[in-house]
């Protein structure tokens, strides 16, 4: 049985963490570049292999059309939802996309869950290398305000990456879990989570009971399209406008330049969190240089509307919890965007207290995910998370009006039972449309799925089908129906409005196994090449040894084997490389033995051989 990890699948960065068995503390796992932050960037190489993380991020500049970032913004969404994003984000949506978006990378198309799966697979391999053990289960965090389709897409991504997703945990709740462990605090806590692409606010009550600590979420609200990206876009808008008016250059046609500019602006944003001013310097392709000084007050004026937008959900969450801002005993800041001084100032003013930010805002969500993973893996109680569903669940009734059956901020798991019957004689099916959202009309809410209950034909009103809607502990909806007259289970085919059907997932799973093989091959190839280079260098060194005699036949055999290995390295067949390594080894073994004997003899004579 493999290990269980906690994963923060973020818009900008993703992290993997675990709870150390000895210290009982959660820790983030570093990747091959030493950092625990894996940029959520995926690139398709020209030879068809997938590159994830830091190397993929570098390719944003060199191969933007083969590389994608911020894919989380597309999870569980339909093409119409993201039309606005396309003006700013260089996503290349495939024209064939209908209910599920397909993104083009080079000559191939992928769904957002597939791209997220590449990131998860990368983190899984970090953890496997770190433990030296298989990792096959995970707790993955999602923005609290993610709807059913977005959650399902995240779960699908886990499955595609070969992970059993034990639970989806809301990001602010995970942060509270990490903080609770760290600070052992009790009482009312507000978690303000402003990340790269999403904003969440959660109000929690931390209670000590005889059995342990309960983390009960009272309310949550947010905006799944509000984050640091929006601050960057604000800067981008200003810079591109000025570049256009100063130089008459429109960057829209040059994706590499847009990425280059974005990088410069993000650096400027980071600097303005620490310093009072910064200078943006951006070389145009014709070597002219755009230089722009920006002071903090101007920066704050520019981004104030973005920060102000976070206060709408904040007020909603407090109203839903029936709390005034000053009732909060702690305010916790999470997410990279809370490093912006204006954000801290606005939060402090609203709650009337200094927010907590002791834990690294980039890591705290992953740490909390690790805590929940540990609870589920070890079964050790002493901590219980009671989360809520962020959006009301409803069904469409006459006239397109939505009847709410599970209100928002209900503790999950939550359920509702509804009775359905036929309206006309001989009707054989009852259509049900499930929605999520707060608005009155179906067309203003998020369509989750449509399905039909099959009933035996009869007079109108005779059929009685009971449908049970259940939102599980991950916030994902399950539906079951029972024909009350026959007592039989009523089979339902659920077609998600925005998401992958079971058959599609199966197909992708097959493909992802091919990818797993490809990844394996890639790793084998790299290892074989490295070993080949080592043995080739060693052979050179041996041949150059002054006190070793080699006859012509032996030298010819070695030269032939060397050439064969060098040729194999140029190819991509790791098995061939291995075979050539063995061949070279076998022809050089007698020679190596002679050197050993010679060294031994020399040592016995008291001579120092170390003079080459």
């Amino acid at each position: 049985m493999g290990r269980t990890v906690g994963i923060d699948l973020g818009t900008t960065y993703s992290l993997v963490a675990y709870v150390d068995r000895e210290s009982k503390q959660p820790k983030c796992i570093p990747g091959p570049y030493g950092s625990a932050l894996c940029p959520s960037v995926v690139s398709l190489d020209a030879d068809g292999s997938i590159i994830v993380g830091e190397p993929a991020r570098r390719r944003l500049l060199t191969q933007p059309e083969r590389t994608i970032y911020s894919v989380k913004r597309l999870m569980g969404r339909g093409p119409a939802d993201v039309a606005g994003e396309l003006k700013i984000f260089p996503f290349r949506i495939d024209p064939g996309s209908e209910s599920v978006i397909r993104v083009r990378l080079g000559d191939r198309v992928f769904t957002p869950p597939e791209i997220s799966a590449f990131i998860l697979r990368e983190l899984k391999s970090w953890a496997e290398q770190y433990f030296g053990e298989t990792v096959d289960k995970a707790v993955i965090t999602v923005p609290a305000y993610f709807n059913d389709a977005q959650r399902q897409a995240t779960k699908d991504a886990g499955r595609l990456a070969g992970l059993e997703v034990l639970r989806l945990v809301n990001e602010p709740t995970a942060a509270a879990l990490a903080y609770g462990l760290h600070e052992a605090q009790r009482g009312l806590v507000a978690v303000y989570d402003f990340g790269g692409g999403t904003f969440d606010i959660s109000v929690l009550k931390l209670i000590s009971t005889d059995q342990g600590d309960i983390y009960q979420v009272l309310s949550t609200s947010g905006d799944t399209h509000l984050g640091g990206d929006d601050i960057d876009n604000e800067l981008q808008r200003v810079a591109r406008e000025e570049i256009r008016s100063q130089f008459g250059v429109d960057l829209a046609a040059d994706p590499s330049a847009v990425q280059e500019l974005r990088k410069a602006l993000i650096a400027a944003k980071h600097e303005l969190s620490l310093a009072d001013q910064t200078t943006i310097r951006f070389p145009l392709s014709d070597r002219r240089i755009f230089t722009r000084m920006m002071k903090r007050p101007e920066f704050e004026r520019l981004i104030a509307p973005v920060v102000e937008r976070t206060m709408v959900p904040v007020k909603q969450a407090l109203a839903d919890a029936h709390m005034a801002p000053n009732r909060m005993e702690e305010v916790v800041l999470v997410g990279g965007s809370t490093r912006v001084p204006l954000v801290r100032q606005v939060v402090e003013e609203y709650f009337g207290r200094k927010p907590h930010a002791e834990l690294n805002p980039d890591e705290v969500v992953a740490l909390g995910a690790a805590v929940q993973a540990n609870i589920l893996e070890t079964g050790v109680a002493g901590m219980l998370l009671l989360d809520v569903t962020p959006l009301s669940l409803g069904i469409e009734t006459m006239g397109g009006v939505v009847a709410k059956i599970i209100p928002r901020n209900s503790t999950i798991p939550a359920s509702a039972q509804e009775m359905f019957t036929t309206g006309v004689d001989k009707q054989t099916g009852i259509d049900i449309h499930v929605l999520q959202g707060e608005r009155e009309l179906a067309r203003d809410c998020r369509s989750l799925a449509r399905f039909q209950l099959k009933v035996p034909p009869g007079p109108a009103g005779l059929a009685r089908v009971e449908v049970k809607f259940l939102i599980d502990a991950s916030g994902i909806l399950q539906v079951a129906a029972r024909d009350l007259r026959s007592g039989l289970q009523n089979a339902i085919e659920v077609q998600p409005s925005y998401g992958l059907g079971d058959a599609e997932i199966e197909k992708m799973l097959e493909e992802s196994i091919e990818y797993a093989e490809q990844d394996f091959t890639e790793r084998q190839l790299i290892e074989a090449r490295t070993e080949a280079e080592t043995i080739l260098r060693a052979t050179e060194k041996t041949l150059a040894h002054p006190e070793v005699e080699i006859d012509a036949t032996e030298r010819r055999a070695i030269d032939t084997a060397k050439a064969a290995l060098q040729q194999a390295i140029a190819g991509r067949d790791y098995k061939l490389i291995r075979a050539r390594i063995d061949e070279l080894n076998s022809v050089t073994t007698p020679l190596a033995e002679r050197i050993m004997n010679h060294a031994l003899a020399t040592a016995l004579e008291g001579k120092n051989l170390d003079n080459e």
Partner: protein
Amino acid sequence: MTASSTMSTASASCWSCGAATSGAHFCAKCGKIQPLPKGTDYFAFFGLPQKLRIDSADLEKRFHSLSWKLHPDNFVRASENERELSLARSSELNDAYRALSTPLGRVEYLLAHNGMRKEGQKKQQAPPELLEEVFELNESLDELREAREAGGDAASTAKVREKLQDAEKTFTEKLEDVDAQLDSISAEWDAVIDADNNEATRRALMDRMNEILNRRSYIRNLVNKVAAELAA
């Protein structure tokens, strides 16, 4: 979302060891989690009598104590059957707590559970004692809407706004009166439960509660409507 394959059904004996269970959360003999009996009484779920005035701290304590036992976290490595039972039980627990955690919710649940909640044919019609005030209020609302459509500025609507604000205050106070009535009828109900628990008396009380709820929802809608118009 996904279609769930099974739907738990209950029987009077433990699915695992066959001992009698009578709707308990766990089998007294083997300790296994049990399916939900049909039409669970939310009060009984918490081990409480059907009384309406509840100490909310005590209810919360019961909720937390049951959460520890029933939550799916405790069943991650249990059999699939037990996992589903935990999901059903813990969702029922949360539904029950949601329903019973407010005085209004308890009255609504009590009536619904006993088949006594009747929203009434004349839902949209004002209760007689409010007729006059509702008539005036609707006039003011029309006036404000007309003024707004005619492009009237804040100054020209100031007077009607003031009138509406007064009305909002009046009706909010009436809502408080209704809540006080609910509280006193709840006390009456509890006394009946404690005393002879007479069926006819209970039905009569539930009829009265139903009327109060109808009046309450009428006034509530009115207040919401005024608030929405004032905010527009």
